C-alpha cells in the first residue's frame, strides 16, 4: 500500500501506525532515485508527493522553505524568477536511472545530490539550513532553521542529508540559495591525459579566479577528443578579465578555447547528470570520491587490473564516475584501487548485484557501530527504508 499524507501530522500518524504494527516503510518522493542504494522490500510505501509547495521564500535573505514533495522544477522556476539558484547544482538522476517522475526537493536532501559547483559553493548538506522530519517513532522533529549560522544543539540536519530516508521521513526542508551569476564562461583544454588534466584543474582551482567547476571528459567520453573544462561565473565585467588571466595560468596545458552562456550551461548540465556515461543502461556505474591528485593513479590501477571502463572526472578530479560492463568482480577491483583514501558507491547495477554487493563503501567496525547506533536512535524498530544503505540497518 502507498500512503500519501497531505499534512505533516498525517505522515507522523502513518509512521506511528507502522511502528505499532511493525510494518516497514519505503520512503519515496518523485520516485526518480529509487535505484540509488540497496534494493529493499517493505510492507508499505510512504510518499511525500502530497506534501508539496513552497512554504516561504525570502529572496533578500537568500533562503526558501518547501514541503519535501515539492518538485525541483517548481522551486527552480520560483528561484529563477528572482534571479537566484540552488548553489550546489543538484544532479538529476533520471539520466542514469531513467523514469519519468518529477524529482523532489526532499529527494535531493535525502540523497545529498550535489553537482559540479560543490567545489566552490558547498554540497547539498552545506546549503541545507533546516529540516522537519518524522522519525521512526512517528514523532515530528525539527532541526536547524532558516538562518545561515546556527550552532544551537546537536545538528541533525546534515546527518539526515544523504541518509537516504533511513533516519526520518523529511517533511519540510529549508535551503540557502545564491544569486545567479550574470555571466558564465567555460575554458576548454583539449587532448590532455588524466594526469595532465588533473594538474590543469589543480592549477585552476589554486588560482585566485574563483573557478566554480572543473571537470575532465577523456577522449571518447561525450566527444572524440579529451576535454578539460573550467567554469567561471561572475559579474559580466569580471568574466572577460578572469578568462584572460585563467588562460594564462593554464597556458602550459595548451591553448584554451572559450564557450559561453547557453553552450556553457548545456555542457555543465551534461556533466552534472553524467550524460556521457548514461548509456548503455545496463552498464554498471560507480561514483568514486578521492583526493583529486589521486584520480589518475586510481584510473591507472583499474586499467592494470584489466578493467575495461569509461570514466568522467568532476570536482577537479575528486569525483570520478566509472562505467563498465556489469560484473561482480569489478567491485573488488574498484575498491582495491582506492588504496585506502576515498570511497566508492555503486550507483547503478541490477537489483541482484546491488543486493549482494556493498553499495556504499564498507566502513570499519567502530564507524559501523556508530552508524547502527544513530540509525537506532532515530528509528529503533528499523521501519524506515530498512537496508537501503547497509544490509540489516
Amino acid at each position, binding site marked *: 500500500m502507498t500512503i500519501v499524507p497531505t499534512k505533516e501530522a498525517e505522515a507522523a500518524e502513518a509512521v506511528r501506525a507502522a511502528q505499532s504494527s511493525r510494518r516497514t516503510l519505503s520512503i519515496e518522493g518523485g520516485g526518480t532515485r529509487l535505484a540509488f542504494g540497496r534494493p529493499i522490500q517493505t510492507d508499505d510505501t510512504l510518499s511525500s508527493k502530497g506534501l508539496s509547495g513552497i512554504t516561504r521564500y525570502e529572496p533578500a535573505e537568500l533562503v526558501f522553505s518547501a514541503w519535501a514533495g515539492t518538485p525541483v522544477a517548481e522551486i527552480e522556476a520560483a528561484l529563477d524568477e528572482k534571479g537566484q539558484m540552488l548553489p550546489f547544482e543538484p544532479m538529476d538522476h533520471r539520466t542514469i536511472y531513467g523514469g519519468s517522475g518529477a524529482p523532489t526537493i526532499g529527494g535531493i536532501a535525502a540523497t545529498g545530490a550535489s553537482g559540479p559547483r560543490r567545489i566552490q559553493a558547498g554540497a547539498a548538506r552545506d546549503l541545507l539550513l533546516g529540516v522537519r522530519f518524522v522519525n521512526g517513532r512517528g514523532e515530528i522533529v525539527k532541526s536547524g532553521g532558516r538562518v*545561515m549560522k546556527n550552532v544551537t544543539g546537536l545538528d541533525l540536519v546534515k546527518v539526515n542529508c544523504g541518509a537516504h530516508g533511513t533516519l526520518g521521513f523529511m517533511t519540510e526542508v529549508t535551503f540557502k540559495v545564491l*544569486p545567479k551569476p550574470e555571466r558564465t564562461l567555460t575554458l576548454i583544454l583539449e587532448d590532455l591525459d588524466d594526469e595532465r588534466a588533473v594538474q590543469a584543474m589543480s592549477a585552476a582551482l589554486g588560482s585566485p579566479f574563483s573557478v566554480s567547476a572543473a571537470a575532465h571528459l577523456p577522449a571518447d567520453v561525450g566527444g572524440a577528443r579529451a576535454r578539460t573544462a573550467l567554469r567561471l561565473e561572475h559579474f559580466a565585467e569580471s568574466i572577460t578579465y578572469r578568462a584572460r588571466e585563467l588562460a594564462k595560468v593554464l597556458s602550459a596545458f595548451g591553448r584554451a578555447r572559450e564557450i559561453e552562456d547557453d553552450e556553457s550551461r548545456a555542457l555543465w548540465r551534461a556533466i552534472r547528470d553524467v550524460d556521457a556515461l548514461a548509456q548503455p543502461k545496463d552498464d554498471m556505474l560507480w561514483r568514486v570520491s578521492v583526493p583529486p591528485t589521486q584520480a589518475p593513479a586510481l584510473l591507472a590501477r583499474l586499467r592494470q587490473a584489466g578493467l575495461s571502463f569509461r570514466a568522467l572526472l568532476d570536482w577537479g578530479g575528486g569525483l570520478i564516475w566509472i562505467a563498465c560492463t556489469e560484473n561482480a568482480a569489478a567491485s573488488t577491483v574498484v575498491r582495491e584501487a582506492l588504496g585506502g583514501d576515498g570511497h566508492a558507491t555503486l550507483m547503478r547495477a541490477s537489483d541482484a548485484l546491488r543486493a549482494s554487493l556493498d553499495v556504499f563503501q564498507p566502513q570499519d567496525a567502530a564507524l559501523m557501530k556508530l552508524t547502527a547506533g544513530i540509525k537506532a536512535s*532515530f528509528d529503533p524498530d528499523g521501519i524506515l527504508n530498512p537496508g537501503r544503505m547497509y544490509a540489516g540497518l
Partner: protein
Amino acid sequence: MSSIAFPTPDPAILARRDDIIAGLAALLPPECLVTSEDERRAFETDALTAYRRLPLAVALPRNTAEVAAVMAFCHREGVKIVPRGAGTSLAGGAIPQEDAVVIGVSKLNRILSVDYANRTARVEAGVTNLSISDAVMPDGFFYAPDPSSQLACTIAGNIGMNSGGAHCLKYGVTINNILGVKMVLIDGTVVDIGGQALDPAGLDLLGLIVGSEGQLGIVTEATVRLLRLAEGARPVLFGFDSSEAAGECVAAIIGAGIVPVAMEFMDKPAIEICEAFAKAGYPLDVEAMLIVEVEGSEEEMEAQLARICEIARRYGVKVVKESRSATETALIWKGRKSAFGATGRVADYICMDGTVPTSQLPYVLKRTGEIVASYGLRVANVFHAGDGNMHPLILYNVNDPAEQAKAEAAGNDILRLCVDAGGCLTGEHGVGIEKRDLMRHQFSEVDLTQQMRVRAVFDGRWLLNPAKVFPLDGRIAA
C-alpha cells in the same frame, strides 16, 4: 549570586581524587598533568569569566594515543571529562566542574602536512586558527573561517562550536571548510571520519560532530580545506543616520545579487568604543556603520564597490569611506576584530550570539535597545549583518551581583526575541552553560529528546562535557 546552575559534584569521585590522579600519572609524564590548586586555577574558567569551577585535574596529552589512554581511563573509572581548546568560549563551553578531568589539546599543536594540489592541510587539533593561515599565506592560500579570537582559539574549539567569523558570508563556517577528523570516542576508541574527499562515505558523521560542543568525542587531528587568496580585498565604510537604514541597505545589496565577502554592522556605542581603542578612522557622527568588503582585481573591486556604493546612496548613506591602502584595510578590520577586547576595557560585558533572519534585523535591533534599557543597562551592537548573526554586548559591572543578574536577564530576553523572530539562540559561540536553560524556548521536548538520543550513542553515561548544551533536568541515557 550567579544564576547559572552547576551540577553537584559527585562526592564519590571527589573522595577518590588521589587514586584518579595516580591513575592519570601512570599514563602521562609529569609535565602533562596539572594537579596543584595554583596551576589548576588557570583552567577554572574560559571567556565567560563570571563563572568558574576548579577541575579535579588537568591532562595535557601530547598525541592521540595519550588522549585515548586518558579517555579510556576516565571512562573505566566513571570520571567526567571536560575538553578544552584555548578556553576562549564566550558561552562557558570549556568551564570545568569539580569532579571532572579537563583534557586540553594545547600540546597537539603541529601542522602535519600541507597539500596545495588538493588544497588541504592536515593539522593537530590544538593548532590555533590563525596559525594555519599564517603557514600557507606566503604561498597565497588561507584557511577561511576567521573568528575574532583567531589568534588564540584552536581548531578543536572551532570544530566544537562550528565557528564562523566575519568572512563566512562568502566562505562559510567551520563545517564547510573541513573534510575529516581523527576523533577519540569516550571509551578511548580512535576513529577516522571523512578524509580528503569532498563527501562522506556513509552517514555524514562529520556534520554531526562539528558543532557538538565536545559532547561526542575529542578531536585530535583535522583535515581542513585551503582556499586561494583573492587578488585583493578592500573594505568600504558606510555611516548611516539610523540602524534601520543600515539594515535595509544590507538587504538591498543581497537583493541586488551581490554577496560581498563580509558585511559587518556596528552601532554608535560600538563605533565609539572601537574607535577609541583602535583609532581606525571610524565616523563618530553616525548612528550605525557598515563595513562591506569585496574581493578581486583592482578593476573588479572598483566595479563592485561602485555598485554597492550606489545602493548605499539609495538608502541615504551619510559617510562613505573606501580603504585606499593595505594599512587602512588592516586598521578598519583591527577596529572591528578588537570590538570585544575594546569593550572589555570600558566595562564588563556579556556577549550574546543569537542569529535572526536578515529581514528582522532592524526590528530586533530596536527591541534589543529597549530590552537592555528597561534593565537600566547599556548595550553595544557589533555583528555579522550579512548572515544575521548578532552580537549585542551588554555592559555591566561584574562586581555588582544585582547588575550581573540584570545583564543575564536582559541577555535571555534578547535570545528569546531572536528565536521568536525566526532565528536561533546561538550562531557561532555555542550553547555551553550560558544558553543551556533557554534550549526549551527554541526546541520542543521531542526535538531535544532526539538530539539526546543521538548524543547517547556516543556517550550513554553523560561523562563528556556533561553540564553543557542540554538543560540539566530531563536528560535521557542510552
